[in-house]
């Protein structure tokens, strides 16, 4: 379990990193926290010609509160984000999800950007990105562009990131509604394992207790994490009665096409999806309701 030979370069700035990417293209792998990449290299499942280390680039490590969104630098550690109180207040779903990402030790190294670009269909952060409609800022030597989550995740471990691009930051929309609640849950065999199925929801209530805004999604149910904006729309205007919640959750599960593996069959996943979707919607509702 030793990586195949590779060249190593440590970039001091985003510009420098982009130059290496421009020059070497496909042969480069960016290493951030290394929690996914290094094991794959050790098993020789990935064999980059170049390993581009972005851990020294200070400009990739920040948490900035904008009016409508929170911007997080790609190389910001997951544990830093997890501990940020202000961020937890503005994008609560992010902290709720982070508690499920691996273990405290992996979160001390693992980065926000690494998890997003790794794009495991069972991973928590990509699911939150899709549910909230996060925006990814990709930088190359020529320019920077912003890609919406819907367009960003294109398949299992595949994203819209081009070979000459580095993820610079992720912008997480913050909802302004006062009575907003969110919830994240998942089923995995052991705590800290990748989820068999995960579910995330965020919704807001009006003063009359009716739902005025809703978003939810499922992880592990397809090639990418899935969001269900149209089904979520069915929740808006309701009082989120059990019946409607169950029906929406059921439809979401029915619409997905999950795979089978050692630990979960497609039938089990679909069943879990219905259960978990209903649970997060109800939990988010309860949380929003408590801000009465």
């Amino acid at each position: 379990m030793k990586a195949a030979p590779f060249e190593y370069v440590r970039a001091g700035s985003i510009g420098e990193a982009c130059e290496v990417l421009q020059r070497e293209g496909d042969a480069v792998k960016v290493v951030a926290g290394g929690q996914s990449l290094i094991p794959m290299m050790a098993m020789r499942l990935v064999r980059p010609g170049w390993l581009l280390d972005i851990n020294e680039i200070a400009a990739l490590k920040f948490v900035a509160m904008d009016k409508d969104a929170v911007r997080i630098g790609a190389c910001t550690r997951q544990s830093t984000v997890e501990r940020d109180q202000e961020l937890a207040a503005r994008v609560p779903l992010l902290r709720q999800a982070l508690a499920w990402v691996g273990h405290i030790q992996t979160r001390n190294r693992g980065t926000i950007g690494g998890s997003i670009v790794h794009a495991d269909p069972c991973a928590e952060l990509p699911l939150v990105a899709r549910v909230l409609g996060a925006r990814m800022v990709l930088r190359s030597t020529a320019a920077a562009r912003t890609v919406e989550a819907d367009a960003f995740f294109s398949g299992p471990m595949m994203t819209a990131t081009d070979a000459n691009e580095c993820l610079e930051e992720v912008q997480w929309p913050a909802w302004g509604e006062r009575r907003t609640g969110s919830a994240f849950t998942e089923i995995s065999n052991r705590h800290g394992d990748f989820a068999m199925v995960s579910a995330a929801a965020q919704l807001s209530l009006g003063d009359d207790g009716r739902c005025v805004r809703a978003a939810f999604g499922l992880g592990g149910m397809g090639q990418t994490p899935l969001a269900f904006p149209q089904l979520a729309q069915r929740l808006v205007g309701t009082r989120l009665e059990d019946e409607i919640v169950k029906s929406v959750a059921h439809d979401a599960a029915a619409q997905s096409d999950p795979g089978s593996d050692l630990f979960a069959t497609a039938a089990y996943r679909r069943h879990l999806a219905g259960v978990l979707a209903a649970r997060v919607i109800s939990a988010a509702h309860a949380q929003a309701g408590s801000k009465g």
Partner: protein
Amino acid sequence: MTTQFRYIGKHRRTKEDPRFVTGRGRYAADIALPGTKHVALVASPHPSARIVSISTDAALAAPGVLTVLTGDEFCARTDPLYVGVDAPKVTRYALARGVVRYAGEWVAAVVADTRALAEDAAELVEVEYESLPFVIDPEAALAPGTHLIHPDHGTNVLYRRKFVWGPVEEAFAKADHQLAFRATWGRSSTVPIETFGVTARWDPVAELLDVWASIQMPKYPDQTARALRLPGNAVRVHFDVDVGGSYGVKRGIKHTVLVGYLAKKLGVPVRLIEDRLENMRGGDMHGPDRFFDMQVAFDRDGTIRGMKMRAVDDVGAYAGRSPLQLGKPVGAICGPYQIHAIEYEPTSVMTNKTPQEAVRGFGQSPTNFAIERAMDRVARQLGMDRIELRRKNLIRRDQFPYLIPSGSSYDSGDYHTVLDKALEASGYPALVRMRDEARLAGRLAGIGVATCLEPSGGNASFELLFNPKNETTTWMDSCLVRVDLSGSITGVMGTSSSGQGHETLVSTVVGEILERDPATIRVIHADSLNALPSNSPVGSRMAIMLGGAAAGAARKIRDALVAIAAHNFECSPEDLEYRDGNVGIKGAPSKMLSWDQLVEIAHRKFHKMPPGLDPGLQAQFVWEVPTGGGVPTQDGRVQMYPCYAFEAHVVYVEIDPDTGKPSIRKYVCGHDCGVMISPDIVHGMTYGGIAHGIGASLYEKFAYTEDGQLASGTFMDYLIPSSMEVPDIHIVDHCTPSPLTTFGQKGSGEAGYLGAPAAIANAINDALDPLGASIDTLPMSHLALWETITKATKM
């Protein structure tokens, strides 16, 4: 209970902890001899194939490569590895020759300057294969006309025999009721953090092979020498290497023969440290993979009259000692119960899977699981309380020594009391209320109880029972104790330790006998050329065997000191009193020779020595296993292990009915292993054993795909429970001393593991009971539980 002891049974700092806790352990990977070269392996991607050709040219040309070894050369120059049963045609070497028999089997070994270079070159070895049929399912492997793993052997069956002990048919005919079911134990193991590692160095002048390895194996130096065609005294195994986890699996014999051969061939030190992938797939360390067809005959009042157990164990593609894991349970085949008629039909079968190795309990935990599932099923069928059923059938404390139908005599026990203590500690009535309230609230909740034995003391009677050509009837161990001129004490043991705390054991025991502070006693590991005979720390035996030997040696020292004093006081030893190492005349406190004075006489003053006593002060003690040495009768009855520890588990679980996710909410283990020499070590063993049992029952499995590939070859798929899955565990001690051992101790190296899977399976089944569902296959994964629940609720 242990107040008559000074050091035994006390909470004292263990000898080993300071070394391990401060990171000063010295493991196989810490052995760094100058000029060491490194091995990487080429593994078969096929479960079964003919090797058409191997081209090593490109690999040999790669940077830093010394050699590429294949099976043709290796198998011609070494001898096959030992087989535990009479199956001489089931030959096994470290490298495949001609055919491969499981995915992951080693086909070639590359030696290079570094492990990374060796791996680079290993990718360049070109092997051409021609696929052959394969068989993964043990029942398919038993069917006639199936693919033969070893055609020369003529069958896939390695061992099969039907034992009948007592009037079985009569019991079944006369009993009020019968039941039958199948219980399946999944292929799991002990999977230590440290994989197997070995370094070997050949000295061509001394003609001596030095070996440093992460080893826990009986007769390892001997088997290494034989396979390498060397005299026994040409192999020196250094037993002072710390072992980073084992519980049976650190056998590494094939690795050692391979590395020994390479070191000799190349004239440089060579080392192989398995990586995780090699360890899981090709390390030959999977555990029992077994199903039981159980039949029980019982009366209306709950009396168990007879039991039939057919056990089929899939040992994978080769046999070492693995078939014998069906043999050890013969020594506790009726569990802690009075069952007078038993039929046992063990079948050991080969498939195209990774070979099996010894795992904690040597086959006893699966057997306990099957027996305990049977007890619960009987209770359920009778509508009887499971605890009452157990109380009714448990051997009573006034019945010891108790002879079971298969020939072993249980030494001692107080099963009813231990069960009661465990129930009390669990707050049983409240636990039942908790369960019933949870059920009313729509949750699936269950309580599991299991009462199981841990046979200990490890003789090897099953070797002769399973193979008449193998007349092994002793499984001795020994200890050397020496007192140097300064009066310091050193204990020498003849084997390695893999986490059992032998240094604490020996120093405590020697300190107890000599009345000297164990903290001042050093304990070292000999190497195999200067070691006294040992059979290594297997079979839960060292507290009994090494502890007994250390005590025996210390007693000889004590007797020598008393003899010296008697000689100098010109009195009889009976007039003397030994206290704290000093010897004085009874009733005359001033008439005393101190420890230092006595030691000085022994080492320097021959003129003050009694005639017949050797100068210097050291003693050795070699001990045969108590009650050991027996030969099986015609119908296969024999005394197995001497001592029997008992454990009673009480577990509370809940299962989320919507997801199948189980969670263990309460865990109590009542435990009686006689006198505990170090209670902290015993408790540590028990905690770990229960965690291991949680893994075997709910999570861990070496799963295979339909095309014969190992599907769980990393820790992403082979699921060892973490601290998040293991609940608080409450251990309740009880002490019924063994009449057979030095201090009344019994073994506890397998404690917890021998009952936890049974208890958890019973708890899960209790939780499923209101649905009318049951599950008897381990591990009970979330998926399996959900499927069981779904099937039941749809009906």
